[in-house]
């Protein structure tokens, strides 16, 4: 059943697959983000209480939601690398970390900008915000650990252990708004049968989330390709590729 997957354990095949997928991801993300951002920021109806400034939701929510997904993706890659000893999963995890850290930063900054007018403060030490800040620290720790070792394989294994330890934080972030009384509101859009948001506002948001997902895919593919090249720089196929493309 999984036999078709086996050839991709070879770095060369995976590199080619990433190259083939890259333009599709890039085009999809550009199209979806253009539609979502223009619709959300310019045409969606304004909100009853927050008027126009609620529109930052179209950046804040996709970044925040997907930063947690990226962490889970990273943890899954680490698990795969530990269980099946796939070297490429290490490259994936290393490629994902900075992307996730950037998304987390974006979500924190947009959250602060949004909080200033709506809550009257940019930052509160409540459970959601604090646990989310820890997520950023975890990302930074993983990146730091990845850079601390000279041997990339060793670095990935060390960073992988930290990644798995940090998974504890993800459910805490997710449920912090239900377990504690927080200033941050509870989930709005994940209740699909009865969303607490009007559909004209919801559609651009969903499009933006998908667009962000494709953008993450694009960035990760680019970084993945680089990681694969860096980890296999002595292999004949990489040298051949480098001579063909011309080393700049």
């Amino acid at each position: 059943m999984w036999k078709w997957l086996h050839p991709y354990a070879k770095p060369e095949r995976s590199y080619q697959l990433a190259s083939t997928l890259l333009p599709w991801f890039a085009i999809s993300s550009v199209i979806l983000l253009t539609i979502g951002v223009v619709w959300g920021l310019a045409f969606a109806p304004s909100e009853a209480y927050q008027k126009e400034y609620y529109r930052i939701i179209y950046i804040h929510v996709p970044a925040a939601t997907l930063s947690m997904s990226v962490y889970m993706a990273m943890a899954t890659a680490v698990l795969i690398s530990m269980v099946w000893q796939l070297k490429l999963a290490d490259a994936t995890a290393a490629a994902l970390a900075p992307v996730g850290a950037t998304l987390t930063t974006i979500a924190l900054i947009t959250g602060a900008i949004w909080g200033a007018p709506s809550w009257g403060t940019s930052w509160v030490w409540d459970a959601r915000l604090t646990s989310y800040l820890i997520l950023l620290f975890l990302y930074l720790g993983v990146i730091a650990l990845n850079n601390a070792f000279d041997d990339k394989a060793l670095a990935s294994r060390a960073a992988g252990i930290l990644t798995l330890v940090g998974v504890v934080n993800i459910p805490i972030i997710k449920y912090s708004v239900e377990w504690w009384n927080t200033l941050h509101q509870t989930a709005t859009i994940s209740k699909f049968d009865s969303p607490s948001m009007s559909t004209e506002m919801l559609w651009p948001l969903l499009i933006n989330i998908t667009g962000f997902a494709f953008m993450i895919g694009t960035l990760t593919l680019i970084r993945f390709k680089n990681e694969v090249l860096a980890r296999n720089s002595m292999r004949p196929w990489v040298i051949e590729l480098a001579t063909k493309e011309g080393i700049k």
Partner: protein
Amino acid sequence: MTPLDHQSLNYTPLSYGQLFMKVMNRDLKVAIHNKGDILNPLIFLVIVITLFPLGIGPETNLLTRIAPGIIWVAALLSALLSLERLFKNDFIDGSLEQMLLSPQPLFIMVLAKITAHWLLTGLPILIIAPLLGLMLHMEPLAYPALMITLAIGTPVLSLIGAIGVALTVGLKKGGVLLSLLILPLYIPLLIFATGAIEAASLGMPYGSHLAIISALLIGAITLSPFAVSSALRVSTN
């Protein structure tokens, strides 16, 4: 005679309890020979605590309010200082590698080393904690809560910290990285511990906070030795 015949190797299998005691006693003995390693983090703790009243002014009310936070933050920082020696010397002189090679379960040995570390660093903090509370004019009602949170919280510091040390022991400049990796993981403990002491000083029940810290302790005891073991295997390569 098979290669694994214990008699032929002149090797007596140890029970888990014996192994635990052997490793722990060894670590305690080594530490007693280097007294500075135990005393310095403790002196650091006292100095940090002294700095706060000097830095923010000796106003009694203010100190009473922030005392739990200061004591706990100082405990976290001194734990970070003392953690380095958990595996470093063993790594340098090669005995860590011998432990990894030995047929004994690594889980038990790691747990024994962490226990020894707690006895040497966590327990002294617990003993001088009332004195620190006195220095900071802590609310008298809060003393039992301070002692209980430190008693069940400081083992968590050693257990979680051991993961970070194990990950960075092979690095030349692991110290700064260690704090970057470990301090975020300490945050939940800090929140619940100071929450418990604050609740106690207001005369409110703090059992729920203690329950969560105990849960952290149980989770850390069961899971952290596994993480430490695999991290040590990575670090010693």
